[in-house]
């Protein structure tokens, strides 16, 4: 292509620049285009092979120097063999970019054009020049075609302020009159106003889904850098905002409901073993839910109610808790309580079974040579056998193997016709970055719902599955992230049907994307090991996994050290993926021999979750995870297989209707980009309330208010919020969108004081103030002044500050009223009030504490208690041994107050020593080194907890529960530096 470019450049003046070159084939017969006999050949091969139909399309820009405007033309040239230079007679036509110039794109269907199915065609018109007929070309270079369009847009953007540079002499362009002086060509590109139109073909908008990496980033993060006084690159932003808006609006208006697609994903590292065991639990699952199961939305869960976390949160969807998959970044969401489920009989109800195998073949040759279907048949047979009677309803759709990495897609026969454009790819990242011992395979499917009378042409949804075996996830952090990114780049699907001219497509250009992944080192050591950033002793890991007292917080505790999650948190890799809550034991490494612990894990390898299923999807195909579990019954490998079941809500929409809607919207928004031509008048927004007072805002109480924005101008208007300078943030994630003329929208302002804000604001910030800058794209900046009054709380204060308060926190008028350091009180009165109330004589009954720290607390009561602590008012509850609602609320309030302390009760510098104490005596000796306030609070709180444990009917369970709840709070360790086992033991010395 470079040779082609330079060959074309030889025809031009030095000031002309070849922007893009595209090879294409003429579709419409061009008797007047310089090829005397080029009627469209009847067959595909003739057409494709006929050099007379081949054309070179070149976008040429011209600029006369720094003070002139760039202009452009589209040249159509005869195709030449690579070694032959172009001469002037090869220029068949020139379309100047001005006036009535337009490019229309369309998808060429197989019936009308016998080339690659996905070849787009483009029609170039220069409407107002007589004798210059439209030209339709077809190309397979989709990416280059995009570049052509981008080139056109660039020229079009420049055109706006251009004036006439030369007289139009149109007739030289008449087809056939090819002897033009090249130097004169660009001078004829006269730029007129209001004619140029780049028509977006809606079908193209739908043919390839938006890249998920882009789709998942909030739009405002994809806009140009802008801030007060610097509007940014409005013309680029406007296109992004518009396209996003149209995409959303089209699907919204054309949606005809949803269709569920049930997908079961399995991943199994077989360690070279052939199939030898029954796979039915893995393939079919032993838990079955009815198809119309709806999992309720995520509820905020009290940290006090994580009690039943050891059970699989997917097990009972009828329970009010949620199995909404947590973003990898939010491990805390994984602690979800559920009671056990009455298990139902085995039944397979997946529409698609997608199974990933790794290490099918461990022989040395296999690392080097691809033995394409090694053991695939054996494993498929085993899978179908496992389906039992259901097997006849399924068939294998496609598979892809790379050495030992195999990905198989099995489909329910009834849905087979829904799948088309089935593509697969593979990429090795092993030895020399190429060999197949490590790497991945991927399969891409287009799912089109079955047409009905109501929905004759349903639009497709693209599903992509990746099975990856990643190498060297060890301390060479950069290398392993590079491997992940390398794989995401190299796994590309060729969408061209004949394969001669690849149309590459990324795995992310999809609506739904699943990753099955094994993370392991070559030497067999686990890579998602629990050693990340912490020397969490091997013994600690095994203790937490096996001992009963860790049952409640086992997974939560260990997953804090998970490497995959850490990588995601640090945005190093996998940050865009979600993963369901892990509630199964680590899947690696099991040992059949003697060197194993009680759970069967190899004594030499720290157990780890090496086998994972991750997913991500666009807004049009929301995914619900229904299960995520390992299958310890299948013991033939040193890994245990993992399965995960998902429900995808496929958007049902009529494709032609959506295309028409998109087209209509594009027309409606026509002029958006030109709006700035007359900035001074046309774009006009009115902020209905430019000054917002949110009133009093309380700790952890949401306050919302809306700001109305009306477009009072005559053209569509885009707006966004911009920060005051490049370094600051806009404030939270405010929305931005398009407004049609006369349309009214609202920005919702939400104030929420969390622990971090409270700990800052408590010091001395009662008046909250900020100004939002709402930038109208290509228009003015509007200010929205926001004020609120912060009402201080005793929560989220340092212990030392609480002891300096002269009275309740609300009565403090200014920091000068705080007590002198030497007159500090012994312990914060708020903590003591809570403990004293609960330790009062009336509650000295066994029953009263049974539900404390177990049942969820009444939120209103908790709020009331906190308000009383803040104001100093008496608690409106009297101890009642028969009704434990108040006691539960007091317990919860105490827990939350301790949890809200900006620094843990026991200062971080003592944690290591605390975790190392060997007996009760040493533990009590630690009290001598703690600050006096800490000692006072520690003694009161642990005495109370001790009392609660002692008064329980089930002493041991209660102690276990309380220690697993309070140890991470009283000895909070955000940096994961100190053994969780040691910290817990320290607390147990005091409450046992």
């Amino acid at each position, binding site marked *: 292509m470079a040779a082609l470019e330079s060959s074309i450049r030889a025809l031009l003046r030095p000031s002309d*620049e070849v922007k893009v070159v595209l090879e294409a084939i003429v579709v419409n017969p061009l008797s007047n285009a310089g090829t005397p006999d080029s009627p469209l050949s009847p067959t595909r091969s003739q057409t494709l092979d006929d050099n007379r139909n081949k054309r070179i399309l070149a976008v040429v820009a011209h*600029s006369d*120097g*720094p*003070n*002139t*405007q*760039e202009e452009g033309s589209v040249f159509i040239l005869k195709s030449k063999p690579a070694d032959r230079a172009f001469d002037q007679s090869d220029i068949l036509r020139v379309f100047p970019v001005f006036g009535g110039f337009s490019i229309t794109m369309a998808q060429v269907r197989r019936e009308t054009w016998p080339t690659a199915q996905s070849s787009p065609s483009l029609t170039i018109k220069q409407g107002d020049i007589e004798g210059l007929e439209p030209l339709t070309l077809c190309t397979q270079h989709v990416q280059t075609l995009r570049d052509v369009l*981008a080139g056109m*847009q*660039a020229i*079009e*953007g*420049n055109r706006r*302020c*251009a*004036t006439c540079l030369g007289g139009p002499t149109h007739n030289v362009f008449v087809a056939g009159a090819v002897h033009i002086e090249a130097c004169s060509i660009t001078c004829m590109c006269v730029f007129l106003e209001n004619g140029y139109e780049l028509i977006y073909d809606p079908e193209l908008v739908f043919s390839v889904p938006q890249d998920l990496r882009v789709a998942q980033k909030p739009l405002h993060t994809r806009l*140009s850098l802008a*801030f*007060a*006084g*610097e*509007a*940014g*690159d*409005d*013309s*680029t932003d406007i*296109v992004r905002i518009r396209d996003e808006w149209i995409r959303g609006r089209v699907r919204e208006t054309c949606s005809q409901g949803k269709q569920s697609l049930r997908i079961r994903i399995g991943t199994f590292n077989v360690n070279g073993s052939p199939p030898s065991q029954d796979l039915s639990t893995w393939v079919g699952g032993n838990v079955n839910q009815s198809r119309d199961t709806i999992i309720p939305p995520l509820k905020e869960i009290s940290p006090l109610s994580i009690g039943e976390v050891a059970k699989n949160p997917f097990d009972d969807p009828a329970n009010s808790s949620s199995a909404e998959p947590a973003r990898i970044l939010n491990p805390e969401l994984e602690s979800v309580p559920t009671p056990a489920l009455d298990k139902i009989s085995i039944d397979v109800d997946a529409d698609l079974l997608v199974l990933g195998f790794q290490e099918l073949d461990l022989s040395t040759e296999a690392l080097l040579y691809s033995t394409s279907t090694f053991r695939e048949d054996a494993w498929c047979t085993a899978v179908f056998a496992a389906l039992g009677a259901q097997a006849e309803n399924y068939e294998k759709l496609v598979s892809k193997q790379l050495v030992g990495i195999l990905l198989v897609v099995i489909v329910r026969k009834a849905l087979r016709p829904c799948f088309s454009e089935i593509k697969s790819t593979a990429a090795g990242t092993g030895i020399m970055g190429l060999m197949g011992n490590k790497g991945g395979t991927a399969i891409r499917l287009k799912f089109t719902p079955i047409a009905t009378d109501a929905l004759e042409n349903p639009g497709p949804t693209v599903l992509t599955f990746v099975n990856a075996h990643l190498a060297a996830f060890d301390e060479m952090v950069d290398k392993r992230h590079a491997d992940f990114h390398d794989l995401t780049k190299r796994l590309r699907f060729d969408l061209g049907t004949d394969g001669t001219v690849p149309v590459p497509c990324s795995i992310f250009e999809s609506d739904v994307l699943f990753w099955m992944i094994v993370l392991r080192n070559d030497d067999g050591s686990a890579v998602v090991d629990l050693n990340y950033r912490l020397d969490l002793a091997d013994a600690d890991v095994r203790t937490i996994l096996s001992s009963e007292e860790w049952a409640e917080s086992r997974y939560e505790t260990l997953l804090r050290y998970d490497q995959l999650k850490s990588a995601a948190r640090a945005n190093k890799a996998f940050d865009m993926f979600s993963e369901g809550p892990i509630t199964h034991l680590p899947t690696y490494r099991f040992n059949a021999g003697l060197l194993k612990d009680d759970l069967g894990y190899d004594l030499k390898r720290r157990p780890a979750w090496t086998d994972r299923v991750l997913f991500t999807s666009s807004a049009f195909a929301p995914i619900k995870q229904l299960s995520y579990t390992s299958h310890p019954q299948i013991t033939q490998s040193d890994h245990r297989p993992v399965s995960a079941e998902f429900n995808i809500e496929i958007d049902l929409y009529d494709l032609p209707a959506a295309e028409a809607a998109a087209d209509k919207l594009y027309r409606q928004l026509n002029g958006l980009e030109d709006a*700035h031509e007359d*900035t*001074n*008048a046309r774009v006009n927004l009115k*902020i209905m309330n*430019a*000054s917002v007072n949110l009133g009093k805002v309380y700790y952890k109480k949401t306050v919302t208010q809306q700001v109305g924005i009306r477009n009072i101008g005559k053209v569509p208007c885009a707006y966004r919020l911009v920060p*005051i*300078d490049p370094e600051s943030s806009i404030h939270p994630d405010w929305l931005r969108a398009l407004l049609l003329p006369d349309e009214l929208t609202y920005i919702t302002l939400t104030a929420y004081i969390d622990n971090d804000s409270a700990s800052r604001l408590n010091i001395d910030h009662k008046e909250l103030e900020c*100004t939002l*800058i*709402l930038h109208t794209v290509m*228009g*003015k*900046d*509007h*200010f929205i*002044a926001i004020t609120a009054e912060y009402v201080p709380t005793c929560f989220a204060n340092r212990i030392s500050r609480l002891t300096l308060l002269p009275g309740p926190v609300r009565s403090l008028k200014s920091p000068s009223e705080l007590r002198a350091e030497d007159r500090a009180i012994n312990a914060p009165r708020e903590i003591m009030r809570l403990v004293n109330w609960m330790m009062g004589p009336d509650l000295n009954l066994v029953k009263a504490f049974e539900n404390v720290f177990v049942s969820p607390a009444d939120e209103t009561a908790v709020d009331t208690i906190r308000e009383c602590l803040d104001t100093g008012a008496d608690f409106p509850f009297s101890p009642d041994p028969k009704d434990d609602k108040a006691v539960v609320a007091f317990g919860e309030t105490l827990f939350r107050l301790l949890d809200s302390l900006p620094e843990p009760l026991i200062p971080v510098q003592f944690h290591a020593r605390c975790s190392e104490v060997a007996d009760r005596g040493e533990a009590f000796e630690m009290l001598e080194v703690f600050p006096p306030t800490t000692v006072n609070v520690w003694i009161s709180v642990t005495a109370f907890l001790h009392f609660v444990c002692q008064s329980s009917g089930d002493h041991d369970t209660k102690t276990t529960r309380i220690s697993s709840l309070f140890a991470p709070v009283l000895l909070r360790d955000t940096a994961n530096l100190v053994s969780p086992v040691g910290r817990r033991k320290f607390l147990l010395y005091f409450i046992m």
Partner: protein
Amino acid sequence: MSKQFQFKLVLLGESAVGKSSLVLRFVKDQFDDYRESTIGAAFLTQTVTLDDQTTVKFEIWDTAGQERYKSLAPMYYRNANCAVVLYDITSSATLEKARTWIRELQRQADPSIVIALCGNKSDLAARRQVTEEEAKKYADEEGLMWAETSAKTGEGVSEIFTAIAKKLPLTAPPSASRAGAARTAGRAGGVDLNKQATSQPGQDACNC
């Protein structure tokens, strides 16, 4: 061939001295008797043609005068090539405010900034509180341009902008207007700002 220069101009001054009206008169030659107070910052452009076929395009930021938005003003006058500080001749308090703005600009804005002090509402000379002598004397002491204008009648409006245009460093490359250049390049290309910066030397001026 004519030359075009582009400069960023910011309007500052007490609330209700007529900043937006002055811009409206300059840009569209219009006047509203009742204008809502500006809450925000409006961006407008107007081109002045000088005698020698040189044109100067002003990118004007008309800022809010209200005290509560004062903290945002520095964002709008950074990188400004010129500033018009307005006062109302019928209110001496507004001249005091103008002095404050001028001190702030001298301290914090680009040292090469051209500042014009402008006494607006000259049509209300009957209620004058600020004499021409007083304002002129202050402007001379500080080395500022000075004029009286009336956005209502149009008196002196285009003159002051033309005078500013002449005073701006037209010999220097317009890249002095950094903000302006970036803005233009962004709009013209619409594809890749960085790429354009290297491939199109002509991005600074839009000469058409």
